[in-house]
């Protein structure tokens, strides 16, 4: 199902999105009267590119900053620093990290988001039509009749048939899988260039999950949409993404071709993450995972490898030197580790 998605990738040499040194620091304690000097480094200097039609998986444990990164790309979170150059080949390349006002509102037609929770991502008091048509309504696209037609089309496209039967129902009358299809329709109705999908299938049942995954892949291939696919599940990333980036405590520690990373993970964290995924085969016994569980938040982190405290390979060099830079290891694999 992702072959088509892969085929359309890397057609254009210029990436759709170039993320450079993206930061987000949250104040660790809020007080209006005192200057805050303690910051949680949620996202700390992230670099990557997203090609047109490509889907990049952003993988990591909860609290690693993957959702914050995704939300910065659609400007639901304002970056503390860094650049996100958006270049769809039509308009001028723009840095969306600093957009505001009218240009930001216009940019929102190019970037949409699908949320994790199919139950809370829709206003329970609005009909499916209102929900899907919302981007058109606020962007003042088309007349009411056009919108009804567009929404009907989208409903058919995401496999909710007959579409007329869904138009004026309420979210609570739909199942989780159906709601997530509605969420996808809402994101795609403005024909965006890229969509940030934040664990869109993690709350769905297995028997409907693949249907939604397949739909997303097919739509991306058909409409030439790029995804930043955020997930904690490497197995899902394998099926949805041609490349994956592994995040740990606000940093990307490894990025590269999906199959290559799954076959030979270089960073000790990626290895641990991969070996912790349970295998649906009772005859297979996995080797034990080498590292301790649990990610803490980082308040003003020391100048050393972020993974130092949990790393089985760490030595004094890792302790006394700054966080390692991302370096090529293998064909397209880029790793941030002194020991890999």
């Amino acid at each position, binding site marked *: 199902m992702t072959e088509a998605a892969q085929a359309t990738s890397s057609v254009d040499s210029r990436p759709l999105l170039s993320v450079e040194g993206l930061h987000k620091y949250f104040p660790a304690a809020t007080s209006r009267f005192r200057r805050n000097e303690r910051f949680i480094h949620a996202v700390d200097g992230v670099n990557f590119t997203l090609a047109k039609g490509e889907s990049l998986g952003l993988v990591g444990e909860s609290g690693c900053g993957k959702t914050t990164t995704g939300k910065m790309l659609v400007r639901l979170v304002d970056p503390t620093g860094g650049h996100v150059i958006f270049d769809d080949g039509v308009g001028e390349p723009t840095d969306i990290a600093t957009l505001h006002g009218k240009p930001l509102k216009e940019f929102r037609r190019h970037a949409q*988001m699908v949320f994790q929770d199919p139950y809370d991502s829709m206003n329970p008091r609005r009909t499916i039509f209102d929900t899907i048509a919302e981007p058109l309504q606020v*962007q003042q696209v088309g007349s*009411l*009749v056009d919108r009804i037609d567009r929404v009907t089309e989208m409903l058919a496209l995401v496999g909710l048939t007959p579409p007329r039967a869904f138009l004026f129902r309420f979210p609570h009358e739909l199942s989780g899988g159906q709601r997530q299809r509605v969420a996808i329709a*809402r994101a795609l109705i403005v024909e965006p260039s890229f969509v940030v999908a934040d664990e869109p299938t993690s709350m769905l049942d297995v028997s409907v999950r693949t249907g939604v995954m397949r739909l997303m892949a097919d739509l991306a291939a058909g409409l030439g949409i790029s995804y930043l696919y955020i997930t904690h599940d490497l197995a899902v990333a394998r099926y949805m993404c041609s490349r994956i980036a592994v995040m740990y405590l606000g940093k990307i520690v490894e990025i590269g071709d999906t199959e290559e990373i799954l076959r030979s993970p270089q960073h000790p964290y990626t290895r641990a993450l991969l070996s912790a995924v349970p295998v649906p085969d009772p005859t297979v016994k996995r080797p034990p995972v080498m590292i301790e569980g649990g990610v803490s938040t980082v308040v003003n982190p020391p100048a050393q490898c972020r993974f130092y405290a949990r790393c089985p390979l760490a030595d004094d060099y890792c302790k006394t030197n700054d966080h390692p830079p991302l370096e090529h290891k293998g064909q397209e694999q880029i790793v941030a580790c002194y020991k890999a």
Partner: protein
Amino acid sequence: MAVEVAPQSAAPSLRRVRFALAMRSLRENWSLFLGTRIGVIGLAIILFYLVLALSHPILMNTVWDERIYDPVVGYAFDETRQPAPPSRSHLLGTDPLGRDILSQLMHSARSEFLLGLLAAVVTVTIGTTVGAIAAYYGGVVDTILMRFADLMVMMPGISILIVLSALIGVEHFELALIIGILSGFGGASILLKSQALSVVVKPYIEAARAAGGGPAHIIFIHIVPNLLPLSFLYMMFTVTGAIFSEAILSFLGLLDVRMSWGLMIHTTEAAGYLLQVGKYWWLIFPASLSITLLCSSFYLVGRAMDEVINPRLRRL
């Protein structure tokens, strides 16, 4: 704005669909409401007083002689002593000034309704808007609005009303506005803001922002409609509060009103009958019972609505 140049066919049909949906949810909630015993009792009491209030002008124009039965300036010429006990012509007797108590009771019911509902609407309109705005913007806006709300809550309402009635003369309309503004900017906005906070963090608010929706769109399309159930509930409790305040103030003789339940008790007290309840019960009971009943009926309806809105309280 690219105006919706919808042909006649689509727009009205959309409106019809929305109307049908609204009616359906109303029907569902109504049947739930009927399932709560307290709600039905409360509604029955409210309807009883509504009938009293509405039938007063009819009676005045048909069977009741204006000179005898006018609630303010009438005089029971047919009685020899005032206050007269209940009789065939005066079912609840007359007051120390010779006015028919039933007529006073019915006349006042209308102003109590208007007062209560106006105060409630003002309260909830202000409270919902302020609460939604404070929750959405947060930060400085939130701080200012909430400190202002604290100030309103701390205001000694009765004392302010005393001063105001001395200065400008407070009637039912002014009283409703004052109560509405005080509790709207005060308790109501604090309560509704805390509810709005739980709405603001929902992903559909983020989805609306990602769609390009501005503050007005998010506040009035997404936040306020989700506050309405609680607003409506708060409205019911405000009615109770307003009627009760009115009763206290007019009992103290601080209101510039011509007739009300509180004033009826005040008249009794001024004429020195207040402590002879046993002998002159018809002077006290009809008015005080009405205050109690109407106040509690709105409260009961509010409680029943709470059960309808809040599925966790619902009996399965």
